């Protein structure tokens, strides 16, 4: 059963609402949970479900993602027959363009699927955080004699407007699809996880490619068309943990959920491991003056300060007397002595000078992009260098590569941005 299924992971997402975090990398490559990147969850779910043939469809700034996936060793996907294949757009004689939508990305790789010739195709997004056994879904799919199945989750009625909503009959057959409805007829939200019979999907992709009015997207075109055609499309109800870390706030919140004493997503579960590629570093060291509660502290960290409700990625240094709370500190960040940080996300390889305080003052609307930056959280970009004794308010943005000379005034008030 398992060898008859191929997973296609859509990893082209730009993740614009993650602001500076996706300046240089695609959303699936964004770090998460101390040592992972977002795509690790989809890939680990595949191998834990016994799916060893995985195609990853990339497009937007794929270099970091390609380097991360590499030959697939961390996921045990470096296999002779199968394993992971990174599928990028490529040129034709006629000088063809980029993938137009998620369905187009698959259509352009028909030859990969034709060669593999699976019975079923699992289509996933590389953007989501969850642990799910796809074999349960496949069993459901087979038992329903479905042509396609869509994993769904019940969401609160007041959030239905954010999702594609599936209306089903008593047999779980999907009879109606509502895209981000004002008035939802159901609370079953699509999670962007599909299983298709390959012959059926193949035909659907070819039809869709011919349709010039289509935007070639699974959620917007393929699935609605299938519902419209009254094809055998079923909703598989999933009840576990699932997050689309689409915004800075949800990114911050989902990370901090991991430190609950009984987290919904248990990283420590032996029978459902998440795999990733990391630097080789020694275990975390806690100094004589360290105090650490409700936090994850990764390899290579050297902690001499106080941590609470924070996630520290690999190789983070925290100086004496520093206090970090409610924050996400990505790989390689160096924090001096006597620093205070709260409600912040600090991206890779930044340096925070001694005595600096981040996250102080009252909330104010972001001056640059209030659509993206709209919570208490301040975001510090990649490779920044914040001088000593700086003060940075709430909802601020320090763009990547900023250094002490980027501004004269390091008293950055809430809502301000530094480039």
């Amino acid at each position, binding site marked *: 059963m398992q060898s008859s299924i191929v997973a296609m992971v859509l990893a082209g997402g730009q993740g614009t609402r993650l602001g500076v975090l996706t300046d240089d990398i695609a959303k699936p490559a964004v770090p998460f*949970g*101390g*040592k992972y990147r977002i795509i690790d969850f989809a890939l680990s779910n595949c191998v834990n479900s016994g799916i060893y043939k995985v195609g990853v469809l990339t497009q937007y700034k794929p270099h970091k993602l390609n380097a991360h996936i590499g030959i697939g*060793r*961390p996921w045990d996907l470096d296999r002779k027959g199968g394993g992971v294949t990174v599928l990028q757009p490529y040129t034709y004689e006629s000088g063809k363009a980029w993938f137009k939508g998620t369905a187009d990305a698959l259509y352009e790789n028909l030859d990969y699927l034709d060669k593999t010739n699976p019975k079923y195709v699992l289509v996933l997004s590389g953007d989501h955080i969850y642990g799910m056994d796809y074999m349960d879904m496949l069993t459901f799919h087979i038992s329903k004699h479905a042509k396609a199945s869509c994993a769904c989750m019940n969401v609160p009625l007041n959030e239905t407007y954010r999702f594609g909503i599936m209306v089903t009959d008593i047999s779980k057959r999907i009879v109606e699809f509502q895209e981000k409805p004002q008035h939802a007829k159901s609370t079953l939200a699509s999670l962007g996880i599909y299983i298709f019979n390959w012959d059926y999907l193949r035909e659907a992709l070819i039809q869709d490619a011919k349709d010039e009015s289509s935007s070639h997207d699974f959620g917007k075109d393929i699935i609605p068309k299938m519902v419209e055609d009254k094809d055998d499309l079923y909703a598989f109800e999933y009840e576990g943990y699932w997050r689309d870390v689409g915004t800075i706030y949800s990114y911050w919140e989902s990370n901090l959920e*991991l*430190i609950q*004493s009984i987290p919904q997503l248990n*990283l*420590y579960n032996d029978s459902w*491991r*998440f*795999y*990733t590629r990391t630097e*080789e*570093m*020694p*275990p*975390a*060291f*806690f*100094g*004589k*003056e*360290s*105090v*650490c*509660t*409700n*936090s*994850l*502290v*990764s*390899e290579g960290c050297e902690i001499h300060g106080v*941590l609470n409700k924070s*996630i*520290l*990625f690999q190789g983070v240094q925290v100086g004496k007397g520093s206090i970090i709370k409610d924050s996400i500190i990505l790989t390689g960040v160096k924090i001096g002595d006597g620093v205070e940080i709260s409600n912040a996300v600090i991206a890779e390889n930044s340096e925070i000078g001694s005595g600096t305080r981040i996250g102080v003052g009252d909330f104010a609307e972001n001056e640059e992009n209030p659509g993206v930056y709209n919570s208490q959280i301040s975001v510090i970009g990649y490779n920044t260098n914040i001088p000593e004794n700086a003060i940075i308010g709430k909802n601020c943005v320090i763009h990547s590569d900023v250094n002490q000379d980027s501004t004269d005034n390091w008293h950055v008030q809430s809502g301000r941005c530094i480039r």
Partner: protein
Amino acid sequence: MKVLGLIFAGGRGENLGLLTTKRASAALPVAGKYRMIDFTMSNMVASDIRRVGVLTQYSPRSLIDHLGSGKEWDLDRKHGGLALLQPYMAINNKYWYRGTGDAIHQNMTFLRRSDEDYVLMASGDHIYSFNYSDMFNYHFSKGADVTFLYKELDDTYNLSEYGQIETDEDGRVIQFVEKPSENVSNKAFLGIYFLNKHLLMDLLYNTIPQSEGYDILLDVLIPNLNKLRFYAYKFDGYWRNTKKGVDEYFKINMDLLNDEIRKQLFYTGNTVHTKLKDLPSPKCTGTAHVENSIVSDGCIISGRVINSIVSRGVQIKAGAVVENSIIMQDTVIEEGAHVKYSIFDKECNIRTEKRLIGRKDDLLVFEKGSVI
């Protein structure tokens, strides 16, 4: 110039007692996520050695599991790479290895077939970070036949337990004394040798078949001390030998809480490679207190941890206190237990409210899987 690495990892390390009933000393866990052999393996790889033979004998399973195909050291190669050299039964050869010299002699085919011209021999149970290239250059600059690595030991070492070297002004070895009752020098030989492969093969052919002793140092090399040019290169960094015993093993782990030593071994020197385990970052819960300690991936800490080394996948429950101890992989310290000056091997379970208090000079050691 290509160098073949040979690592002696066959010995049990008798002084290590319960810690080596089921593993060779080279396979002993150290510093939270490593095993002893990782240091020598990583030093070799960092010194551009592309073929490494590991001589195993005593309980090699955990070593074999750990090294695997050599992937983590990038030694899973088509040409060269990692070779595990266990003794085997052949038509005219039914011995276990009788000593380090015999071990190499039984693997003469491996030496002959490799295309390297030089051999670096080292023990698998020492901890240090060193790029051997410096020693190679010294060897050639002196026109030496054999070069030893040595270190001037301070009084944190028991000098009389080491082989001692005397050198002339040029650095040439003029005397070697194995563990003398009266010290002749503070220059201790570190069990690391560099010499021409063909010279080594020649010496072995001429010694082992008619010898009564089978030690590479005492029976094969030292008898030629006057005939060949032995030189000694000085190593200045942190170096320790686990084989010396449980106290030494404890000291090594505690040394790693020293910022300088940790820096030297892990941050300024070679990357230390080890087998990956795919565990998440350790979690400190709301009741945790961690002070002057190393905590590895996969741990969940709710109790107090002070001056200790905590390996991967350990759980320390709320109210438990761990002081000056080494906790190996997957051990669980239950609520309210109190342990001090203790070493827990893998998969131990210390029950609720249990008190296990050793002393610095009288460490408690619990073997793998103990439930107390």
